C-alpha cells in the first residue's frame, strides 16, 4: 500500500469526515467509469460503483493493503458486477480490458519507469481513447483532473493553482509530474515498444 492510500484508510478508520469526502470524490467517478466500460447502462454502472464503495467501506478494517486501494476497489467492483448480472452478459463478463491484465495492474501500481512514449499512433482510435481514459483514472489524485483542466478545459496555470489552492509554481510542478506519470502509465497500458520520444 502506498503512503497516500495508507493515510486515507487510516483517516477513514478514525472517522475523519474529510477523508470520507476525499475517498468518495476520488473513487466514485473512477469506479463508475470502471463499471461503465463493462456496461451499456449508465444507471446500472452507478449502482455497481455504489455497491462496490459500500462493500469497501463495510470491510475497510479487513483491507490489508496487499494491493493499491484502487486495485482493491476494482476487485470489489468486479464482484459487484458479477453479482448484479443475473443474465449472463458476455460483453460485461468476458471483456478483457487492458487493466485486467495482472502485469499491467502491477505496473500501474508501481508506476515503474519505462523509457517509451507516444505509442499506438496507428491503433484503433476507440481502443486508444479507452486506454487514455483508463490511464487517467489510474493516476494518483489529482493528476488526471489537472491534465483534463489543462488540455480539455484549457485552464491557465493560475486558474489551476486557484482551484487546487496551491501556488502557480507548485501547480506547474504538479502538472509536469502529472504529464510524466500519464506518459508512463499510458505507455504501460498500451504495451508500446520502447521507441523513445517522438
Amino acid at each position: 500500500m502506498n503512503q497516500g492510500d495508507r493515510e486515507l484508510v487510516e483517516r477513514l478508520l478514525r472517522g475523519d469526515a474529510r477523508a470520507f469526502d476525499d475517498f468518495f470524490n476520488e473513487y466514485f467517478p473512477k469506479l463508475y467509469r470502471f463499471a461503465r466500460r463493462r456496461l451499456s447502462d449508465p444507471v446500472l454502472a452507478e449502482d455497481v460503483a455504489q455497491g462496490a464503495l459500500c462493500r469497501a467501506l463495510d470491510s475497510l478494517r479487513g483491507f490489508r493493503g496487499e494491493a493499491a486501494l484502487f486495485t482493491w476497489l476494482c476487485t470489489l467492483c468486479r464482484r459487484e458486477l458479477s453479482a448484479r448480472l443475473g443474465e449472463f452478459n458476455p460483453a460485461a463478463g468476458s471483456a478483457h480490458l487492458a487493466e485486467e491484465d495482472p502485469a499491467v495492474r502491477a505496473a500501474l501500481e508501481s508506476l515503474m519507469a519505462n523509457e517509451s512514449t507516444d505509442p499506438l499512433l496507428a491503433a484503433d482510435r476507440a481502443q486508444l481513447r479507452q486506454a487514455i481514459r483508463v490511464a487517467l483514472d489510474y493516476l494518483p489524485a489529482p493528476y488526471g483532473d489537472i491534465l483534463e483542466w489543462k488540455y480539455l478545459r484549457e485552464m491557465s496555470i493560475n486558474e489551476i493553482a486557484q482551484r487546487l489552492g496551491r501556488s502557480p509554481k507548485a501547480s506547474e510542478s504538479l502538472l509536469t509530474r502529472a504529464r510524466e506519470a500519464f506518459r508512463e502509465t499510458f505507455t504501460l497500458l498500451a504495451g508500446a515498444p520502447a521507441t523513445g520520444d517522438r
Partner: protein
Amino acid sequence: MSQETDNSVERLIKLAGERDVPSNEGTRRARAASERAWRQMLAQGSRPARRGGRFLAYGLATAASVALVAWMMGRNEVEPPTPVTVARVLTLDGTPVASHGGITIPLTVNSPLSSGTMLETTGGRMAMIFGNTLSLRADHGTRITFDAADQVTLLAGTLYVDSGGLNAHSSLKIRTPAGEVSHIGTQFQVFVAGDLTRVRVREGRVMVESRQDARRQELATGDALEIRGDQYVLQHGLQTFGVDWAWASALAPVLEIENRPLSEFLAWLVREQGLRLHYSSERLQEQAAEIRLHGSLDGLDVAAMLERVSLVTGVRLEVRHGVLWVGA
C-alpha cells in the same frame, strides 16, 4: 520531458475527450449509501456501545424478530441445549458478524458455528456448510440463529440452500415467521421481511408448513410461495437462473479443477447457476468425461470460466436461455 512529448500528451488527452462522469442524482445517492456504510463500519469498531443504539434503530423489525425467537423458545419451555458445532464458514464476503450470548465471535474461513449463535451479514454475505454436503448461503441484510445441526431460524433477509443433490442425505429446517421450510434434495431460497415469507425453489422439492394453520404446501422446481399472515400466493414456472439467484451463485466456492474431467466442471457449473446442460452429441459427452482440466479458475466469473475452459479444451461452451450448450 521534451516539448514534443508534452505535445503528445496533450494530443492524446484531447483525442480521448472528457471522461464519463456519473449523474448528479447517482452521485447523491451513492454518497448517501456510502456514508451510511462508512458510519456503520465505524460503529462496528465500538460494538458494545453500538449494539444498544443499533437495536433501537432496527425498531419494529427487531421487535418482530425478538417476538419470533421468544415464541420459538417459549413454545418448548426447555433449557437451551449445550452449544455444539453445527456448521462452518466456507466463504466470507464483507464483514458478517456472529455473536453468542452477547459476545462477538470473530469469523474467518473455516470458523466453526455453534448452536445458539446469531449471525448478521449486514452489508456482507456468507456461505456455510452443514455436515459434509449442505451449503447454506446468506445474502446482505440477513439475520439468522443456528438452533441445531439441522435447524436455523431466519429472522430477516435471504437464505439459499443447496442440499448437495438428491443423493445427499442432509436435512435442514428453516424456521420463519410464517412457519417451517424443509426440503427433499434441493436448491431453494427463503426470504423474510417483517411478516412476509417467500420461498422459491430452484431444483427438487420443498415442504412449507404454516405456523398459523399447520397447512402444508409442497413446492417443486420453478415454484414460489409467498405467505403474509393468512394470505398465500403460489407461482409456477419461474426461472431457475438469472438475477434472483446471482447472489447465491457468486458466493459459491470455486471448484478446484486440477485434474478433474471437463464433465465434472460442467455439472458443477450448471448446478451452481441453475442451468440445464445440453451436449451436441453423445460422442462429445463421452469425450467430456475423458478431457482433464488443469490450473485454477479462482477469481473468474462464469463467462470468463467458460471462455478459459473452452479455450484450453477446444470445446465450444455457450450459455443461452438458461441452457449451457456444449459443442456446436
